[in-house]
């Protein structure tokens, strides 16, 4: 028969595990709790591949550069897609939001002319241009999965 002390220890350690599980579930992207786990689900966790970004560059040159500039610098009324203004505009939103904006309205003169893989590739190209890190997996092409990826400017 276990002593009361052992039972107490078991209960305490179970409680501690439960608390930690709840705490882990509460961790939002962007909170500075350190380590790879905190970056999971943000644009800082290597959410696209370099090859995907290369493909995106070709799509960008054909469909986007005319208004947004070959160097993503924007022009007149088409905003820059890299740099301060772009980052501020999308901060705290998700890649799903960006994907949907492109899907619904871009390129401005031919919305709906890009396939889902092409749009995901372009986003990979934009992320690389804005110096987010590449990784081992490509960006998915379905909106819900992209909604799980938060665009945060300040590295968590």
């Amino acid at each position, binding site marked *: 028969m276990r002593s009361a002390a052992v039972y107490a220890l078991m209960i305490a350690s179970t409680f501690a595990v439960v608390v930690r599980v709840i705490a882990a579930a509460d961790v939002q992207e962007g909170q500075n709790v350190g380590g790879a786990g905190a970056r999971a689900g943000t644009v800082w966790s290597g959410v696209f591949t370099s090859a995907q970004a290369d493909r995106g560059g070709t799509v960008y040159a054909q469909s986007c550069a005319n208004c947004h500039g*070959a160097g993503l610098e924007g*022009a*007149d009324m088409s905003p820059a897609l890299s740099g*301060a203004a772009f980052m501020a505009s999308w901060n*705290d939103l998700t890649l799903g939001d960006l994907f949907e904006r492109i899907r619904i309205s871009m390129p401005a*003169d031919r919305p*709906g*002319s890009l396939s889902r893989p092409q749009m995901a590739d372009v986003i990979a190209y934009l992320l690389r241009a804005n110096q987010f890190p590449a990784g081992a997996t490509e960006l998915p092409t379905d909106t819900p999965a992209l909604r799980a990826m938060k665009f945060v400017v300040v590295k968590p």
Partner: protein
Amino acid sequence: MQRPIASRMLVIAALVGVTLMPNGISGQSGGPSTKSGDWPAYTADARGTRYSPLEQISAANFNQLEVAWRFKTDNLGSRPEFKLEGTPLVVNGTLYTTGGTRRSVIALDAKSGELRWVHSYPEGTRGGNAPRQLSGRGLAYWTDGRGDDRILYVTPGYRLIALNAKSGQPISTFGTKGIVDLKVGVVFGNEQPIDLETGEIGLHSTPTIVRDVVLIGSSMKEGMTITTHNNTKGLARAFDVRTGKVLWTFNTIPRPGEVGNDTWLNNSWAVNGNTGVWSQITADEELGLVYLPVESPSSDYYGGKRPGNNLYGESLVAVDLKTGKRKWHYQLVHHPIWDHDVSSAPILLDVTIEGKPRKVVALPSKQSFLYVFDRVTGEPIWPIKETPVPPGDVPGEWYSPTQPIPSKPAAYGRPGLRIPEEVIDFTPEMHAQALENLEHYKWWKGDTFLYSGTLYNPPIVGNVKGLLGAVNLGNASGGTNWPGGGADPETGIVYAQANLSAFAAESVAPPPQGFSDIPYQAGVVGAPFRLREAAGAGTYADVPRRREAPAPRAPAAPQGEQQVQNYSTVEGLSIVKPPYGVLSAIDLKRGELLFQVPHGDTPDVVRNHPKLKGLTIPKTGQGGSVGLIVTKTLVILGDPQVTTMPERGRGAMLRAYDKTTGKEVGAVLMPAPQSGSPMTYMVDGKQYIVVAVSGGNYSGEYIAFGLPDAPAPRRTSSSQQ
């Protein structure tokens, strides 16, 4: 002796006719006005003031504003729009505005936002071809004061439509079934009519209605990379508000025999166009004068195909309301090659200056000068001096050696970039890097020319291997742009927001073979050619959605081209020192700046910059262009950019400033940047502010703010009611 019956009837008929003579009322003469809490015109009135005497919303309660109602424009067209620029009107408790990729017209209950009616006019490929798309800046209202209330607006495909304001139905007695085809009468070249389907002309601004006259301007595509200088010729016209009949046409490019024709050397008037009137026309009903803000002639940055000063390009022209005859004009830029369109509604004010009552017209500008004239005679109130400007050397170009620069009031923004004084200096390292960057551009050291030679600095033939362009501040987008400014008629103070950070390096290069008959267009030698389109280009509701990969837009780039390096930022920050954007107030009584304050939250990139940690940086304001309103006590305008601030998350603020001191007295959060100019009105004793927001992920929405209603009295068990 008895008069014959016939002639007696004639006399009676004549008397009846005179008594019942239609006498339109719009704004000034006893009809709806801001005095009664309405907002019956795009700029509040036909004088461009954006002023309402309402004072229920004040410094004491601005922070308590709540969203009273909101209206998304997503379904006014085949897909949502992301650049909603409209300013609604309110007359007698109904709000009217345009919206959506269709540029539909809606009428809402002004208290609740409930939709009352909607009108749309599909235009197929004619709409798809339109140079100016999306919802535009709004519409116009007219009433005869006896129940004939009308809404008039210009479609993307450039048609003028008159609707019954109560039902939204086209008025059958106006034009043809309610429609006047505005492309009829528009020409290019030597009076050749443009094609009705494909001819390039459109409009974003709203009609201006004075008495029974509807004033309509004209706009073409962005002029930086165009295929021909022999483009559609701009014009301004007046139409009868009842019938839609053309009353007069003013040609902004003078024809042979007309004054100013000789400012187009070698008969270049015949083979050039643009020179439209795309900003808001204003008018003085008592004087019977109309003020036309005229834009750039064909090809924004190269004028070799139009030698001469090119009247009335980039001029303010006053014409007679009845006849359209020019009364006076003032050209703000001779031989325009900087895209300094006259972008603002001319503001009409009566002010006592140096002890004398004057009737003035004040014009905010992209150059951040306020040009002030006697609006009767055209005489500048304070001297405007022809001033030497830097020379240019683009082959075939013609240059004006001087440009007119106002001596007073002082610039209310940055006409140019003073180097090194106005170059980034958060840290010495950033400042040094900026000065190094500037070596890649053309400008003048010392004080040979004002603003280090960056004001009216002519474009160069830039080269990726050498100088990339001529430094200018704010050609396309500096100073005050299409939203214009506003004024307080009681105090004679003009208010305008100005973008101070629109660094541009203007360069022209030969375009690809066969693209254009103009030898130089916006571009840099050695870099791929890029077509420059306006916002919303190609976004018309019926633009076909093609699934195949698109063909390249411009001819394929030859081998060996490289991108233009961008030296206009330092560590991601603007090379231009703050403030990036300001709200300025200019007191016309003295011809002096009253205040100038940064407008807009400091951008995220500055607040979060790793190299600026620990520095105390005063509020920088934001670049961009936003419009404002002036009330009894406040100036109100929103931020042009989104920021994420710890205390309120992401969004843009709608701010109120004390109109005499410029102190910010309140701010409320909007979910997206202000993209259309605000307006204010009162219904049933409650004041509202409505502003259009859109951008980034946020599609177009009109948001109405109002103060919280007092809670309804609670009923007790022994209620007397």
